[in-house]
């Protein structure tokens, strides 16, 4: 979902040596992976003839495929390595980004918002804004989103190339071009169908490749309780194993964050904004074959998302307990020749995995990078073709023309991403800006979409001006703190707040500004008649009843189960 400051640091700093070497069997495993994902792309090309096939995978995926793809598109290796590093530095607090920062929003998407996205038959989130608020709101969100996706895709490519250089000593140009061309080929051939297929495969690979680390790690330390005891022994005076009990004050926890920032900033605005309005993930759910599958997909995704800390956070905690060396920040690591936080996952991989298993683990990391990149590129192709090219350039071309455009702009998206990857090398601070730009767009968009779906009095001008003012205010707050760091006490409510806390509060304020402006402008402008809002707004849309289904087939039943497990987990690790 976001790039951690720790990983930003490693991506901005060249590393002199590699962590591990591969054997023949490891190389063979990696080569087979490339052959299989390319083969899937060539195989699926024959099934992508229409626009719906190419951009929405024919809308025929089961809830399981759509749900796994939904969560896999987010589970890039930036996530895997970045949050494992965060777990080493901040302890179990990093789990908030997987639980309160994801689960409630995913369930809300499935139960409340999905019916409107699905019934409106939109191709994209900007497409929904067109139906609800008109062309200006769509154009604003489409252009911003297109820029974000290729920028994020470029960051993904560069991070993968740099991690391969750090871990295996591979040439950075080789990694950039091989991974980009591979993703470009399979997405251009099979469109979203190919991206979804490969994401599900990559999701399984990530689990199979990373699962051994926590299993053998727990065997080594002698179980959870012994791990907690060893962490406390190795790090006296610091609490690394409680989720909520240290969040009463900014200065009581290593993240420098208060529980209000976690609940309102992360759990509400950032999380709901990302999981319910970022088209990169929502597009996966739109591929579902019917409304029930579309509602079930985010619920299935949420149940898997809840388990991801087992392969991401737990290795970071285990490293705190078992590694004989102390990992340090990136700058210190480079100057003193030590290992940094960011190397925690590769270090644990090298600690437990010999020939064969090492290749599987490296393939899992590559799979994570490529699924994140394919997600960005396929979302870019859809938004460019439907919401920019068809809306603003050529309105009445044939369906096959738009499919062809989708294929070409997949290649174009890849080329721009490669350019961005090289740009990141030239301008080291660009990744910091990318993360900031990402938050500018997501938080206000959530306010616009939420009001659009739930409040029928909301008008087109209200939606447009709310989105624009929310985005501009977010940029303004970011610039204010950059120019005057003491402004942090106003934006993040405390001078002790860190970057992460600032992001949370900036998102919260920009969301509030978006909502207030949208409401005020809507109240002084003419609303659309109810008849025009059918299929788009709560209260004007007849959502098909599920009353005739047995309890175990109703999405709300499974959402309640996942919500109950979520609550229990938070209490257990309180």
């Amino acid at each position, binding site marked *: 979902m976001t790039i951690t400051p720790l990983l930003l640091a490693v991506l901005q700093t060249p590393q002199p040596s590699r962590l591990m070497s591969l*054997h023949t*069997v490891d190389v*063979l*495993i990696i080569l*087979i*992976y490339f052959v*299989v994902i390319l083969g*899937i792309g060539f*195989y*699926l090309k*024959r*099934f992508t003839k229409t626009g719906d*096939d190419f951009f929405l*995978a*024919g809308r*025929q995926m089961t809830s399981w*495929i759509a749900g796994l793809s939904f969560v896999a598109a987010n589970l890039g290796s930036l996530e895997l390595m970045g949050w494992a590093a965060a777990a080493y530095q901040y302890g179990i607090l990093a789990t908030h980004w997987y639980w309160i920062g994801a689960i409630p929003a995913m369930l809300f998407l499935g139960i409340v918002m999905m019916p409107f996205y699905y019934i409106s038959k939109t191709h994209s989130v900007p497409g929904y804004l067109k139906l609800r608020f008109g062309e200006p709101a769509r154009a604003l969100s489409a252009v911003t989103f297109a820029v974000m996706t290729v920028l994020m895709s470029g960051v993904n490519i560069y991070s993968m190339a740099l991690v391969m250089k750090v871990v295996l000593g591979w040439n950075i140009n080789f990694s950039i071009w091989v991974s980009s061309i591979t993703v470009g080929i399979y997405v251009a051939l099979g469109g979203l*169908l190919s991206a979804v*297929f490969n994401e*599900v*495969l990559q999701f*399984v*690979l990530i689990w*199979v490749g990373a699962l*051994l680390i926590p299993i*053998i790690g727990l*065997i*080594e330390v002698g179980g959870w309780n012994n791990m907690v005891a060893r962490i406390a022994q190795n790090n006296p005076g610091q609490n690394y194993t409680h989720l909520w009990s240290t969040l009463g004050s900014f200065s009581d926890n290593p993240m420098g964050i208060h529980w209000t920032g976690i609940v309102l900033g992360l759990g509400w605005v950032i999380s709901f904004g990302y999981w319910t309005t970022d088209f990169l993930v929502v597009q996966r759910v739109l591929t579902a074959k019917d409304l029930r599958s579309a509602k079930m997909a985010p619920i299935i995704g949420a149940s898997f998302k809840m388990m991801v800390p087992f392969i991401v956070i737990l290795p970071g905690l285990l490293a705190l307990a*078992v590694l004989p060396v102390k990992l340090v920040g990136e700058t210190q690591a480079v100057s003193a020749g030590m290992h940094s936080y960011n190397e925690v996952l590769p270090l644990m991989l*090298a*600690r*437990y*995995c*010999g*020939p*064969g*298993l090492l290749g*599987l683990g490296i393939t899992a990391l590559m799979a994570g990078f490529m699924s994140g990149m394919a997600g960005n590129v396929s979302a870019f192709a859809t938004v460019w073709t439907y919401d920019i090219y068809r809306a603003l350039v050529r309105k009445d071309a044939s369906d096959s023309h738009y499919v062809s455009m989708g294929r070409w702009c997949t290649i174009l998206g890849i080329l721009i991403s490669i350019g961005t990857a090289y740009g990141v090398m030239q301008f080291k601070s660009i990744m910091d800006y990318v993360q900031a730009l990402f938050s500018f767009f997501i938080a206000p968009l959530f306010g616009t979409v939420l009001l659009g779906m739930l409040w029928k009095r909301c008008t087109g001008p209200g939606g447009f001006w709310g989105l624009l003012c929310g985005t501009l205010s977010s940029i303004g707050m970011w610039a204010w703190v950059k120019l005057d760091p003491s402004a942090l006490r106003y934006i993040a409510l405390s001078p002790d707040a860190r970057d992460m806390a600032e992001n949370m509060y900036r998102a919260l304020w920009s969301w509030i500004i978006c909502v207030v402006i949208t409401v005020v402008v809507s109240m002084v402008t003419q609303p659309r008649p109810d008849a025009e809002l059918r299929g788009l707004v709560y209260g004007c849309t007849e959502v098909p009843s599920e009353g005739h289904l047995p309890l175990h087939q109703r999405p709300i039943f499974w959402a309640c189960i996942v919500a109950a497990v979520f609550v229990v987990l938070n209490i257990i690790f309180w």
Partner: protein
Amino acid sequence: MYSEQGGVSIWFFIGALMFVYGILIFASGLFELLSNTPQTVVFGGLHAAVWWGALLIVFGGSASYRFFPRKS
């Protein structure tokens, strides 16, 4: 459309890949076990490659068989 044209299930691709990976990892682990190669990893005595590879063979083989593309 994909399903109407009887496309191969994604679970078959996943199963086949896991099966092949299982064979490679199992064989690699077995070679290390039988050749008494010095352990280079912590808890190498667990021979994780052997049982993890075997698990992948079972999982991958079952999925490939269950979702093998058959003509109806």
